[in-house]
């Protein structure tokens, strides 16, 4: 697994969280997590999960919480709940 | 004085003063003819650079400006001679022998109507009515109207000012 790809994922997660950060934190985390779950292919989430096991360096606070929520259980059932 | 008496004299194109002229009139409603008249007054003719500049400032295409310039008899795309003789060839002047007068002038100047002498001194043109029909035949030399015009009278008008 190349580190550059991980860097890309970290940047993507941060970018997503930066959009939501204007909202109250719980909503921001939820929004970021939902976005990642909806749009990231399982490999990407798995790779992020692995990065989290090493501490998730580079992720900002919201992105870190969101990734923990969205990427930890990749193989779990569909997470879509409707609505955006 | 030269300029006053030779309104058709061709001054070198000067984009800055042309721009000034255009800017002066561009606020008018329908500013194109006043601008073209003023530019021709200043430069003696309306060359391609003038057409381009007018188009640019008025936000028109050069096609439009060219279309207008080419429509009106007065506008010149090329400079005229230093003196311009316009001889009236409309009916009132016809009744008083203007065709004969035109022939005499052509022979005297060695040019045909719409032409300029080799030395660029005189351009001979026709015009249809100068509003002086009770004193036909009429001519206009460098903007000055002549009544009961004759070859002698017209050539004297050019000669005096040459």
């Amino acid at each position, binding site marked *: 697994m190349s580190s550059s790809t991980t860097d890309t994922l970290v940047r993507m997660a941060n970018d997503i969280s930066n959009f939501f950060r204007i909202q109250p934190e719980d909503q921001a985390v939820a929004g970021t997590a939902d976005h990642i779950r909806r749009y990231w292919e399982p490999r990407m989430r798995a790779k992020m999960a692995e990065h989290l096991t090493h501490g998730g360096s580079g992720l900002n606070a919201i992105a870190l919480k969101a990734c923990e929520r969205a990427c930890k259980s990749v193989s779990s059932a569909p997470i879509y709940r409707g609505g955006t | 004085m030269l300029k006053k008496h030779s309104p058709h004299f061709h001054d070198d194109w000067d984009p800055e003063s042309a721009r000034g002229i255009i800017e002066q009139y561009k606020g*008018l*409603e*329908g*500013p*194109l*003819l*006043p601008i*073209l*008249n003023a530019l021709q007054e200043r430069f003696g003719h309306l060359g391609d650079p003038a057409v381009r500049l007018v188009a640019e400032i008025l936000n028109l295409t050069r096609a439009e400006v060219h*279309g*207008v310039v080419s*429509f*009106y*008899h*007065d*506008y010149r795309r090329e400079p005229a001679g230093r003196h311009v003789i316009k001889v*009236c060839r*409309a*009916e*009132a*002047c*016809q*009744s*008083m022998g203007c065709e004969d007068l035109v022939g005499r002038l052509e022979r005297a100047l060695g040019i045909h109507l719409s032409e300029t002498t080799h030395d660029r001194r005189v351009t001979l043109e026709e*015009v*249809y*009515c*100068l*509003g*002086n*029909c*009770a*004193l*036909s035949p*009429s001519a*206009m030399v460098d*903007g*000055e*109207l*002549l*009544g*009961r015009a004759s070859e002698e009278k017209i050539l004297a008008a050019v000669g005096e000012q040459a």
Partner: protein
Amino acid sequence: MTLRIFVPSDAAALSMGANAVATAVQAEIESRGMDAVLVRNGSRGLLWLEPLLEIETPDGRIGYGPVAAADVTTILAAGAAGAHPRKLGRVDAIPYLANQQRLTFERCGITDPLSLDEYSVHGGLKGLRRALDMTPADIVKEVIDSGLRGRGGAGFPTGIKWRTVLQTEAPQKYIVCNADEGDSGTFSDRMLMEGDPFALIEGMAIAGIATGASKGYVYIRSEYPHAFAQFNRAIAVAREKNLLGRGILGSSRDFDLEARLGAGAYICGEETSLLESLEGKRGQIRFKPPLPAISGLFAKPTVVNNAISLATVPVILAKGGGFYRDFGMGRSRGTMPLQLAGNIKRGGLVERAFGLTLREIIEGFGGGTWSGRPVRAVQVGGPLGAYWPTSLFDVPLDYEAFAAKGGMIGHGGIVVFDDTVDLAKQARFAFHFCAIESCGKCTPCRIGARRGAETMDKIMRGERVVQNIELVHDLCETMRDGSLCALGGLTPMPVVSAMEHFPEDFDRGAAHRAAAE
């Protein structure tokens, strides 16, 4: 009392050396230390007498003419009471002038054209002041009642046009004065703008008030540089004296106007072409409808009137529509400023009520030809007017009477030809002129005029004369009924009238045959 000496600054007078005369007068006043002032008036319209010098006396103005600069010393030395070969006596007693009925040209040549005070003293501004106290509808009614019809040529009732503009709602409306006086044989617009410009300004202001238009344009042809300059000077005076601008003459009404110079296009005398030109476009004809009164300049409701029509409005408002209506005959009411031109002994401007005959004008006022040869033809109404023989000289001047004989009054130009005229040549010229001045939009005019001239050439060369005359007749029908505007539509009038009244000039086959024998 300071002596007033008048030398016209009218373009016709200038064309005969009036400036040199004026300079001589000024020099004479100074060298003699006279208590005198030189006034540059307009022309009286006695153009064969230009330059006409006048000296004011308690008994009236004494005229001299035509005067050369060299005559000035002797004239002033002799004084108004003395004798002089150029002396004409009291100008207003000269029959040519005494026999006129001047309403529109009441002041022309009498006043200093740029003195608004003089204008006012001589009856000016009365109409406008009255109009300012009237409702627009009442002003329009007054003009309708006067019976004034467009003096540009079409003869459409002026007041009706105004009513349409008045009734068309729009945030902006315009008064456009058509001073693109291109007809050969006409010069009344020019004389008026040079000799009594405030009359036109006042007339336009009244039109503005009557229709709700606050802006006017006067479109002056470029062949009239002198009139353009003079009229602009008058506008400047009018603005300064609040005849134009905001709250004119202290009222709550705004009206301003601008003079615009044409660029050499006879067609721009047609109202829609004129509007295109004012908008800065090629002077191509617009189709109608919509009428300019509804969608005219910049698509706004627009009054387009001839300069003489507008300059006649002040006298109508000042003296009432009924006063004006009492002049004239039939449906031709009021007076018409006629212009005597061409090969004529006494050329000039004659303003008379409708109804007198061509003979009275040409022989009475005009005195026959300049050349002294017999009159053979006369063209009334400009280049698109009919050529008439002397046998029609008893037709009275009246729109309908002229139309009944296949002619038109047009803008009142009368061009006289002596017996040297070749009517086939004149017919060819009618086509040729149409070809030169065609805007090029509609096919009958664009191609037809060219082909007409070419076919006339063939006739004049004696080629297939009968067939070609028939072709010219067919072409004339195509142009008359098919053209978009009056230029193409009326070009057949001089052609057909020449062929009808002077057939001998067209039978070149016969002439050629005769020459061959």
